[in-house]
């Protein structure tokens, strides 16, 4: 078919995989990204990518990977896509290997695998401790091939502003802003993929890149797409606190034998290496003998949090040791070099000699745009040939990667994000192509919609270019981040969530009095940030409302009756399958999010209690 053209927004793993898969089918791709795609946030993923290849002869299988993922996610994920992803994972790793990723090898030259959280098997393929970077580069390279052959056209330093929907509500393209000239244009497409990553910056400082504002997802939500499970926010147990961001210290540090501990005596200020074994409290190993330091992230995070609340944090501060000093230097350099360099550069200590000091930090959103999948009704499995895969409730709009809500349920297992991004792109690209072919002759004319969308955004940016109120957008963003981090991360309490809702509404009001300090008409990042900030406030309310209404604890959503009694099981609301084994669906309205609940597809594995 002539003139088939899709739009992909976002050039991380999910977006690039989508683009490559569509281009491979001969379809033209317009690829939008606010940064050169090679600088996307996928580069920050460190530890590895899961796939049950069973190289180590441990009896691992894709079925166990499937069970670990569903169980790790506390049964909140629709199961057929999870199963399909786990089945596809070994093939995806092989594909990336063929693309040239320099995965670590066994002495036989085969791919090596390491352990990660939430499983007992060596299931994680890795390239040093910069796996995400290597995977992204491999896809960036394949995409560049298609750029040279003319099928992929890149719009780098362009920001997605909103959807273009026709009179029947179908998504027919996007409106975007050129970050340099500040020109706004609308782009038609037979289908649109949002692969724009997570919303970490809603929390101010997180392990996310500063480009991960969630602005695109929020804009799509305000344009009618549903947002699901927004309250499920993963806080990574081990990050390095910083004034500009929280830097990730990969789970692979524990996968390769790293041990988390604090001195048994509160306020013990001795040099850590001089503290004898018997006077160290390896609290994860003690409490979770089967998984030890490799319990899932939500659990490790809560334990570290509670230990610090009880006064065992290092020097009374919110820090614990992550100790690698018992592992030989050479082995550390080969398997973890990249992350140890980061620690060394930013903290100044050599983690091969001195235990690292870490604390939990906001890391990942399990929630995101609601997407569906094609189901083979006779087998119950995901139908990979369906044009429904990765599609949102808005016809023609698809979502893939962290920005979509699927796969991870209430908590994501380490090293499952890379595989989920790649899998979503792998099935999402062909689904978009199929959708385009199924609908191309049936859709109404949309010329008016494009003119209208451009006009709307031209007017909005012209307005923003003249705002002169007293509020500074960066200060508002910091307040939002502090409130969200304090009240909507590790531990939630209804009173605090209500206060946070009120605060967010106050910030929305103050946003109306925001002022611009940059009056330039060229590369004005501040205008763009003001627009992003409004979108962040909208999505922050979705997260907060979802958390408030979910009166149970499940995975990363841990709700306590009384905040002063600590992060303990006794103080927490229990998991409540009767009322809340359901997907939270948020729909945008002028009065804030409207929440409803949808059944979870648990057709393959019967939900059971989650105990590690």
């Amino acid at each position, binding site marked *: 078919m002539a003139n088939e053209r899709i739009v992909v927004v976002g050039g991380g793993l999910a977006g690039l995989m989508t683009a490559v898969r569509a281009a491979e089918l001969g379809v033209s791709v317009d690829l939008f990204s606010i940064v050169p795609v090679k600088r996307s*946030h996928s580069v920050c993923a460190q530890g590895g990518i899961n796939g049950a290849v069973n190289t180590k002869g441990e009896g691992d299988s894709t079925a166990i990977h499937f069970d670990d993922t569903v169980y790790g996610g506390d049964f909140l994920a629709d199961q057929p896509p999870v199963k399909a992803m786990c089945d596809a994972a070994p093939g995806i790793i092989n*594909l990336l290997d063929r693309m*040239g990723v320099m995965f670590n090898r066994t002495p036989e030259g085969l791919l090596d695998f390491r352990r990660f959280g939430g499983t007992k098997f060596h299931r994680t393929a890795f390239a040093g401790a910069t796996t995400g*970077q290597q995977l992204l580069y491999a896809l960036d390279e394949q995409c560049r091939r298609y750029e040279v052959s003319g099928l992929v056209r890149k719009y780098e330093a362009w920001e997605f502003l909103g959807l273009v929907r026709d009179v029947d509500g179908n998504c027919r393209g996007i409106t975007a802003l050129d970050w340099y000239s500040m020109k706004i244009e609308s782009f038609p497409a037979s289908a649109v993929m949002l692969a724009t990553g997570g919303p970490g910056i809603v929390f101010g400082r997180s392990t996310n*890149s500063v480009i991960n504002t969630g602005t695109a997802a929020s804009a799509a939500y305000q344009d009618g797409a549903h947002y699901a499970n927004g309250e499920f926010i993963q806080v990574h147990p081990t990050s390095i606190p910083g004034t*500009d961001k929280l830097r990730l210290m990969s789970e692979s540090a524990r996968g390769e034998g790293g041990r988390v501990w604090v001195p048994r005596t509160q306020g013990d200020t001795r040099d850590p290496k001089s503290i004898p074994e018997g006077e160290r409290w390896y609290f994860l190993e003690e409490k979770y003998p089967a998984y030890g330091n490799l319990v899932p992230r939500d659990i490790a995070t809560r334990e570290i949090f509670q230990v610090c609340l009880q006064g065992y944090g290092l020097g009374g501060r919110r820090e614990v040791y992550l100790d690698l000093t018992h592992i030989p230097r050479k082995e550390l350099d080969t398997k973890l070099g990249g992350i140890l360099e980061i620690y060394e550069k930013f903290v100044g200590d050599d983690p091969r000699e001195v235990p690292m000091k870490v604390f939990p930090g906001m890391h990942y959103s399990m929630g995101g745009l609601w997407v569906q999948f094609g189901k083979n009704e006779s087998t119950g499995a995901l139908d990979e040939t369906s044009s429904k895969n990765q599609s949102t409730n808005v016809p023609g709009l698809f979502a893939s990667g962290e920005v979509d809500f699927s796969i991870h349920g209430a908590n994501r297992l380490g090293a499952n994000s890379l595989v989920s991004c790649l899998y979503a792109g792998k099935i999402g690209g062909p689904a978009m192509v199929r959708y385009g072919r199924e609908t191309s002759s049936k859709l109404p004319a949309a010329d008016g919609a494009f003119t209208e969308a451009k006009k709307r955004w031209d007017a909005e940016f012209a307005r923003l270019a003249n705002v002169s109120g007293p509020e500074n957008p960066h200060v508002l963003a910091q307040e939002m981040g502090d409130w969200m981090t304090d009240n909507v991360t590790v531990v939630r309490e209804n009173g605090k969530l209500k206060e946070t809702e009120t605060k967010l509404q106050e910030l929305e009001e103050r946003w109306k009095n925001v002022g611009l300090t940059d009056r*330039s008409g060229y590369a004005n990042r501040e205008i763009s940030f003001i627009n992003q900030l409004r979108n962040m406030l909208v999505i922050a309310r979705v997260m907060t409302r979802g958390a408030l209404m979910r009166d149970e604890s499940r995975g990363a959503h841990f709700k306590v009756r009384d905040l002063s009694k600590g992060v303990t099981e006794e103080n927490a609301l229990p998991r409540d399958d009767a009322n809340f084994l359901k997907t939270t669906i948020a729909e945008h309205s002028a009065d804030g999010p409207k929440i409803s609940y949808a059944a979870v597809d648990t057709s393959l594995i019967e939900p059971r209690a989650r105990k590690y």
Partner: protein
Amino acid sequence: MPSSIRLSVKRQDTPTSSPYWEEYEIPYQPRQNVISVLMEIAKDPKTRAGKATSPVVYDRACLEEVCGSCAMRINGVARMACTALIDSLEQPIRLEPMAKFPVQRDLSVDRQVMFDSLKRIKGWIPIDGTYDLGPGPRMPEPERQQAYEYSKCITCGNCLDVCPQVNGRSNFIGAAPIAQARLFNSHPTGAMNAGERLEALMAEGGVDDCGNAQNCVRACPKSIPLTTAIAEMYRATTRYGIKKLFGT
């Protein structure tokens, strides 16, 4: 301990306008880096003299020195701003855009040439398709470890900025893309079309134009053995050229 942090920034409003310097001063806090200082200034942008100004425009994303965005000249040397810790810098800290790339605005430059160079050297493994063909080729771990060093290149452009051969009068491709050719040529599949990449490096502005100043290897934030790659590619192109000449 200083009571404040002083910063001098070379600003430029548009690609064609003239640059000018502005000075800022903010209260000292420990463990800051250049990025966190620029973030702080954006919350109340005014010069040291108290004049209202606009936030400094610069490129940044990951702040973990892996995205390659925030390269700039800091006290005269091209490096990443995220790992430039304030406590180890002489004040006032001078920030300038890299000089070998066109300035877009302030410290933000256009590094498209680096991505275009990756097209020039055919920097990819030409797989047949994304369908499942089973595992890739085996590779000895020691060779993999060497190749991995090159795969860490973040395309920041520091190696080009410090290279005397990269200038307005030459087409020299620079160290980063040469090292990438080395990476792809050492992959068992990539080696099958090593010749195409070598030919790109033998064309005008290729590996021959290296002047052996060795600034690149010192400027690389990822400690990539760039001069080793250049030497290897120099030998490989010579061998390839001779073979081609004699048709063997």
